């Protein structure tokens, strides 16, 4: 078993899936000889050639639109959007075309494709290299939205996404690419899309989160344990469809729920998760559901102090978790 960081896990999964299935191919800006701006496709060009590891023109709508056409024909494109912030020119193709193709053709036409994009802040990326865009997509039925938090999950979820019969948006927090390492089996495995994962068990409070903040919350939970409170940390892993069963079970277990995400608060994932809890298990709660999210501002500022102010951290998570534990 190899110890990989998250971007290495993505790369090795792409390699394995491309070896496994000749119809799998990668397309995006600078994915060829350069291997992607984050190195997610490094070395794939040499192994699979310029057609299956294809440098695209600088045109996000085309990366997705051509991907849709290629998926309609029967191949399995993995489209890379260089930064999630640049996905908006492709928004129409994703929302009007990929998400609706199966539905509007009554099941005749399908779009089995993956759109990968690095997202998230804390890397001095300013407004346009830091955004969390997942919430623009999670209210669009027809799409699946996946966010891995560990290298192990990244491999299993990406393999599942590539083999999925429907379009999957696969968002990778760029702040985790090299920051998190873990054991990744070389053997083939998938993690089912739509299943959350209990990253830490606990009996005092429930923290529901995904992406980079999973690690902040786990770090905070260790500190909180020293203070006498055990936090359960549920990693959603898939944002669409949400794992309602796991959310309700986790909420019921402790009766105190904090939802944490870097994306903005208003109309966010946290709002949906708390609505599920209110619908399913309100009377099991011992405290109002809490949310700790990115601020409701257009995007993340560049200057260090403002970026730090915007970003969540283990300290901010600990404070919110401690307050809830003492409620």
């Amino acid at each position, binding site marked *: 078993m190899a110890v990989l960081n998250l971007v290495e896990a993505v790369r090795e999964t792409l390699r394995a899936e491309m070896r496994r299935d000749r119809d799998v191919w990668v397309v995006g800006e600078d994915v060829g000889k350069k291997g992607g701006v984050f190195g997610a496709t490094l070395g794939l060009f040499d192994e699979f050639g310029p057609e299956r590891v294809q440098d695209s023109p600088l045109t996000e709508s085309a990366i997705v*639109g051509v991907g849709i056409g290629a998926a309609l024909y029967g191949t399995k494109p993995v489209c890379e959007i260089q930064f999630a912030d640049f996905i908006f020119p492709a928004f129409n193709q994703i929302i009007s075309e990929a998400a609706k*193709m*199966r539905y509007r053709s009554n099941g005749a036409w399908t779009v089995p494709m993956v759109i990968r994009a690095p997202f998230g802040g804390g890397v001095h990326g300013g407004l346009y290299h830091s955004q969390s865009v997942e919430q623009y997509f999670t209210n669009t039925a027809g799409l699946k939205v996946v966010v891995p938090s560990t290298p192990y999950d990244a491999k299993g979820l990406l393999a599942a996404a590539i083999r999925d019969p429907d379009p999957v948006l696969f968002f990778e927090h760029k702040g985790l690419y090299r920051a998190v390492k873990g054991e990744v089996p070389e053997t083939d495995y998938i993690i089912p899309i739509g299943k959350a994962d209990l990253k830490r068990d606990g009996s005092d409070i429930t923290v529901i989160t995904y992406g980079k903040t999973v690690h902040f919350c786990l770090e905070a939970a260790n500190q909180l344990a020293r203070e006498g409170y055990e936090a359960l940390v549920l990693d959603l892993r898939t944002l669409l469809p949400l794992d309602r069963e796991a959310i309700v079970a986790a909420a019921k277990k402790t009766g105190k729920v904090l939802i944490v995400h870097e994306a903005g608060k208003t109309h966010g994932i946290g709002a949906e998760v708390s609505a599920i809890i209110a619908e399913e298990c309100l009377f099991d709660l011992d405290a109002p559901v809490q949310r700790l999210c990115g601020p409701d501002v257009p995007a993340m500022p560049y200057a260090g102090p403002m970026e730090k102010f915007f970003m969540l951290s283990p300290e901010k998570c600990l404070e919110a978790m401690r307050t809830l534990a003492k409620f």
Partner: protein
Amino acid sequence: MEATTKARHEALGLSREQLLEMYYYMLLTRRIDERLWLLQRGGKIPFVISPQGAEAAQIGAAFAFRRKHDWFTPYYRDLGINLVAGVTPREIMLGAFARGADPASGGKQMPSHWGNRPLNVVSGSSPVTTQLLHAVGIAQAARMRGDDIVAYTCCGEGSSNQGDFHEALNWAGVHKLPVIFMVQNNEYAISVPLDRQVAGGSVAARGKGYGMPGIEVDGTDLLAVYAAFKTAHERARSGQGPSLIEAKCVRITSHSSDDDQRRYRSSEEIEAIKAKDPILKARAYLYEHGILDEAQEKELEARVMAEVDDATDYAESQPYAVPEQTLRHVYKED
């Protein structure tokens, strides 16, 4: 030197029978559309969007492609393309009546949002020009697999200003993909005329910038359109890459059944269009070359009307999908 000059259709390798078949499809396209207007005005169907004035462009183009072999990502006016691709009048009417057996969408989509999987006619949407990129992707994937296909895609001249138009032509040009981009220029984007839509006045001229031939053709001239597409199809198949063909058409009807073109076109202009009717032009050619006479024409009209009547009656008698179909086909079902 030959004693007699070949007729235009002969020079293109078209037999009299083929030419008659093309005319049949033009007429079928027109008569189906006329019936749709009657049904709409009679309150039986909610919406029509019309190919009238583009029949020569569509049938001329479609005859250059191989049925059930080449791929189509058409636009909403492409009734004629669909018919030649193999979609039946009954299937067209099922879509118009939004019936459950509509092969395009089972009644989910508005009429003229085509789709027919066995015939390689890809499902389309209402946001314009998205389908051009799908054609490029289809051609890209086919090349990866080593398949000899050509992709047809189309939009109006108004849509040719969309970003996806630029992205699609550029991508196809970079990779020399077997795609034929058709622009049916009917001089109006709903109510906005060409000179307020297309800078430079020519869509075809844009082809050069994408490294492909940009061909302007009289879209009311069946044989001129066929000739342009035949050349483009051969070019695509022989690995020389994509072509852009701008067919200069006319729009005989309003944009759709929700529009009234008298609000923005003069009655003189609307009247003048009738002289450019592609059906009359094709008919004149057939008469001139002794391919069609009055008796044959009468028979042909009767045959077409019988098909239109049959399709209408059939579709109207078919049931809607059950309302719960609303919830189906969001994701793959177990």
